């Protein structure tokens, strides 16, 4: 059984301009010990999906529906006190910007101890010992001394390590990481990704990794969900998605990426801008930007369909299979042929 199963999740926000459908029918599941990557542009709904699962959206103005079954319980219908028990204990979250997610006026030791004592009935001394142990586990040098430092005394990478330590205090089953390395330099990013995979192996936790970087996805994800304008465009195993991408949006994402291993003269660019979620386009939401657009795309919304009967790889596009395979091959050949 899956650790977390999300079915037809919808999150709509009431605003002065109308209803913003930030997440509009998203389904996925994740097993224990696995990593699920969610990719998409800013505003595609990837962060809101996770905030909804965690119950962190403002109560006013938010309308959510669907199911998020975690260990047999539906997180969306749970009372706030029950949810508080789960949050930080069974499910933990790491945010993008480590400076704004740590309290600047408290020592990091204090913040870690607080997180432990909220969920465990332990003495302050025991909690502090646990905090110290975690700081060492995430690779903070001279942890005995740094535990009494303030967040501003840490560098960006170190702060992100503290955030990871805080997320891990109660051995969560599921770790949701929202762009955890976006604000970091490549060398630091490599350190953090390595740390996350090591810890995952150790604690056997599941990770949901939200990112816009397909490189990071290729590196750590087992399964991938590609989101576009509040919906899932394509979803599948990481190998399937990179070797046989099926959706024109996925092609666009792959083609627009300058990469180290290939030389291209011009990047594939996705024309235009992501649509407004107040008033998304009719039919396929990608059609105004899609180079393969057909008549049917403008009127009929495509549903997620298995690729060649493979239920683990699904895509939502009206193009026929032959065209897709040909185009996917062309894209991959383009990047391979010019690799030298």
């Amino acid at each position, binding site marked *: 059984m899956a650790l977390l199963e999300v079915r037809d999740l919808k999150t709509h926000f009431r605003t002065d301009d109308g209803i913003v459908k930030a997440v509009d029918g998203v389904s996925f599941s994740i097993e224990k010990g696995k990593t699920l990557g969610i990719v998409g542009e800013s505003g595609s709904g990837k962060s809101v999906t996770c905030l909804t699962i965690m119950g962190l959206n403002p109560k006013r103005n938010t309308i959510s529906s669907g199911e998020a079954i975690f260990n047999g319980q539906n997180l969306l219908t749970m009372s706030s006190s029950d949810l508080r028990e789960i949050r930080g204990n069974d499910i933990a979250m790491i945010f993008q910007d480590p400076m704004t997610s740590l309290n600047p006026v408290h020592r990091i030791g204090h913040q870690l101890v607080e997180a432990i004592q909220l969920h465990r009935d332990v003495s302050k001394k025991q909690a502090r010992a646990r905090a110290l142990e975690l700081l060492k586990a995430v690779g903070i040098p001279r942890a005995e001394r740094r535990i009494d430092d303030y967040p501003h005394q840490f560098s960006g990478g170190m702060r992100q390590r503290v955030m990871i330590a805080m997320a891990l205090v109660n051995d969560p089953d599921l770790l949701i990481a929202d762009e955890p390395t976006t604000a970091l*330099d*490549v060398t630091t990013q490599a350190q953090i990704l390595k740390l996350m995979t090591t810890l995952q192996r150790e604690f056997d936790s599941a990770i949901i990794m939200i990112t816009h*970087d397909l490189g990071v996805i*290729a590196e750590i994800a087992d399964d991938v969900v590609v989101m576009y304008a509040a919906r899932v465009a394509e979803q599948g195993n990481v190998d399937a998605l990179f070797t046989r991408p099926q959706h024109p949006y996925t092609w666009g994402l792959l*083609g*627009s990426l300058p990469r*180290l291993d290939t030389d291209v003269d011009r990047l594939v660019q996705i024309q235009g801008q992501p649509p407004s979620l107040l008033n998304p386009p009719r039919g396929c939401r990608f059609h105004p930007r899609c180079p393969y657009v057909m008549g049917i795309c403008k009127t009929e919304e495509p549903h997620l369909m298995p690729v060649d009967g493979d239920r683990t790889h699904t895509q939502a596009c009206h193009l026929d299979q032959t065209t897709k395979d040909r185009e996917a091959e062309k894209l991959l050949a383009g990047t391979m042929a010019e690799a030298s």
Partner: protein
Amino acid sequence: MAAPATDVAPQETAYAAEHDGSDLLVVENLKKHFPVTRGIIFQKQIAAVKAVDGVSFSVRQGETLGVVGESGCGKSTMARCIMRLLDATDGRIVFDGRDITRLSRVEMRPFRREMMMIFQDPYASLNPRKRVGFIVAEALEVHKLGTEAEIKRRVQELLDVVGLNPEHYNRFPHEFSGGQRQRIGVARALAVNPKLIVCDEPVSALDVSVQAQILNLLKDLQSSFGLTYIFIAHDLNVVRHISDRVMVMYLGHAVEIAPKSRLYAEPKHPYTGALLSAVPVPDPEAARTKKKIVLEGDVPSPINPPSGCWFHPRCPRFREGHCDVETPPLYSFSDGQFAACHYPLERWPLTEEELRHPSSGRAS
């Protein structure tokens, strides 16, 4: 295979030798130190942040020089010194054959037209209270390039060139998306027909699909107007895509400069190697097999940089008694590749064992 060893050249002469008159910009031993002071009324300098500490390079007419490095390595400070937005502490900046390092504001004015800058954050670099037409036209007005009608025509032409609707010149920046704003920044930089454009992380704040649009635009503009770029970024993929030559900076120093084909295929400096191996490649198969050099620790403080080689505290090839004592000069390799390392990488990629145990050094 290791490149055949050539003579050790001090930084300046290495570049002088390359210098053949086609260089638009020559930077020699550029230094920028910011004082750290104590006291409120009587400020006493107690230390200096050595943000840029002796960088030399040249940029040829029509080429793109990429500059990469982690945050805090001095790449933006260097750009600001070149633009004369900051005054260099030491060194020489020669633009188009003229030393501009110590020119006064008035003397500098004609050169301001020749070099423009594109900034990282398209939200912060456009004045929210000014209309787009004004933002783009400002430089034209300052330099008195044409009548009002001519300037308006020129602005509309520029907006068209960068792919915006010329009718939108009356709009405010907030009415545009991030990618469109960056296009406005590009139009502004182009307005006075500059020779050199310094791009400081122009695509870092943008989504990948929009990033591709801007990168393509910059390339197109370069070929139509013969522009020269200094392109600063921390993303090695982006730098590789757009650059002809690449300079890697670490702690205020240039540790490696090479044509991009050399730098990416055969890096010489261990830091360059570490950067390259740290870049996530969007290929799950390659990601599983790739050997990574994961550097330990953080970049040291530029107030109190390490002795000898600046990279030695984090370097896997560190040799005690040599690297921490003797500062490596920029050694010259074949094909215009320079690297400041006593034990340059013999080949690429390396195994863990080869990385830790260099076969032989450039030892003295």
